[in-house]
């Protein structure tokens, strides 16, 4: 077996993958229904004149059956939005999981691409589109799903047919998304250094962004921080170090104890101060958590007699 196969197709617990599915789909549903209010956004964008219409390539490709220059009406977008919600709910509960995830991923990509076909665009959603697409091609419905419940019921009378707990095909989406994070952070640090060199980390840069967004979005915390030159200077070096070395968290899993909390703090800080809602990134940090091991550890600790917390954690399947 090649090193490639040993890495990407190592047996991995279905539970680990299913947790990523649950968190990713729930976050995306929250985003489009509650936080972004996507239906209102679509209606506003659909009303913009053709002069502003700059369709993304992926939207043109998805529109090919209707012609290269096709621009969907709001009525069509509204239908697609509700199909998206239904598919998302099915994917969340894990009923017809793969089919639901395919429909959910395609409609999410389509609707978001439409929103971004009018000059402006933002960065939080793209990684979720990749994650949902990858999950749709994976056995993410083999655990924590209605599908899995049906499968277990059918096999209940035949122990030999009981579904497996792990698979060679359950790990690659998780590892793919881990490396995708590495590439996103590498792009971020490369952009900064390529544009400005180490002058970027001069304190004033982040003070500028904090002050700009504090005044733009009325954020007292960002305003206060924009006045702390030395603290912000150190923070900028921290950002370069974090983004530039994030690959270490994938190569050496123990370092995730440092990188995952640091990354979560970074994105929460960015949201609280710069009002940039990277919820999708925060949610997809789920790919760095060994859920099966964590649950086994919790179970062992709950079962351990009071005062004896040294029960061993089982090995993930």
């Amino acid at each position, binding site marked *: 077996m090649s090193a490639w196969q040993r890495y990407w197709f190592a047996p991995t617990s279905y539970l680990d993958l299913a947790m990523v599915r649950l968190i990713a789909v729930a976050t995306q549903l929250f985003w489009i229904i509650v936080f972004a209010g996507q239906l209102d956004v679509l209606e506003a964008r659909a009303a913009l004149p053709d002069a502003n219409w700059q369709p993304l390539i992926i939207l043109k490709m998805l529109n090919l059956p209707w012609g290269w220059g096709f621009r969907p009406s709001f009525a069509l977008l509204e239908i697609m939005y509700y199909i998206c919600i239904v598919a998302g709910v099915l994917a969340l509960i894990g009923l017809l999981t793969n089919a639901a995830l395919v429909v959910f991923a395609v409609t999410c990509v389509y609707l978001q691409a439409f929103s971004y076909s009018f000059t402006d665009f933002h960065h939080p959603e793209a990684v979720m589109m990749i994650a949902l697409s990858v999950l749709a091609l994976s056995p993410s419905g083999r655990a924590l799903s209605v599908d899995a419940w049906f499968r277990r019921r059918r096999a209940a009378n035949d122990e030999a047919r009981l579904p497996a707990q792990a698979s060679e095909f359950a790990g690659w989406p998780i590892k793919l998304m881990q490396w995708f994070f590495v590439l996103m952070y590498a792009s971020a640090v490369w952009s900064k250094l390529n544009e400005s060199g180490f002058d970027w980390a001069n304190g004033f840069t982040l003070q500028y962004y904090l002050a700009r967004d504090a005044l733009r979005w009325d954020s007292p915390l960002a305003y206060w921080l924009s006045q702390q030159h030395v603290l912000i200077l150190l923070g900028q070096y921290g950002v370069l170090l974090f983004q530039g070395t994030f690959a270490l968290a994938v190569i050496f899993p123990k370092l995730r104890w440092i990188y995952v909390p640091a990354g979560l703090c970074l994105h929460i800080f960015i949201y609280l101060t*710069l009002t940039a809602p990277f919820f999708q990134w925060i949610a997809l940090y789920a790919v760095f958590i060994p859920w099966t091991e964590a649950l086994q550890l919790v179970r062992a600790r709950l079962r351990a007699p009071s005062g004896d917390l040294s029960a061993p954690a089982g090995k993930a399947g």
Partner: protein
Amino acid sequence: MGMTWSWDALGKALISAIIVVILATQAVVGLVDTGKWGWPMLAYPMYKKAYFEGDRLNHDVSVYALLSDGTRTEIKRSDLDMSFWIFWYNVATPIALHRADLLEPVVQLYCQEFSNQVTKLQVEDKGVAIGRDGPVEGLPPQVMSEIEVSCS
């Protein structure tokens, strides 16, 4: 058993191709930065520009229509019923980029309102700069960019 092996092998080959395509594309796009056109494969250049003490903040702008008699009138985003970002990308940014074609709806609207007297559109900052101790407010506003337009 042989059939199972071949389906597994085919599955792994297809998945391997997907892994390579996604990671290679993201690696290239992440370094080259193709803007939004490759979405959802993107570069992540957020906050990449360095700023220095005294640089002017562009947290908000004022947009004006200049009339042929020398007077100017503010184009407010509330008058156009636009959100901050729609106004930013569809009015302020095209002026900075000198893209008159993207400004046609706004120009037509104000030409009608001011009897075809609109000659220029202008973007002005709010008079704030960054300093070591935070934002320095109350500076005279500066014109950031302007574009000549025609009502004909």
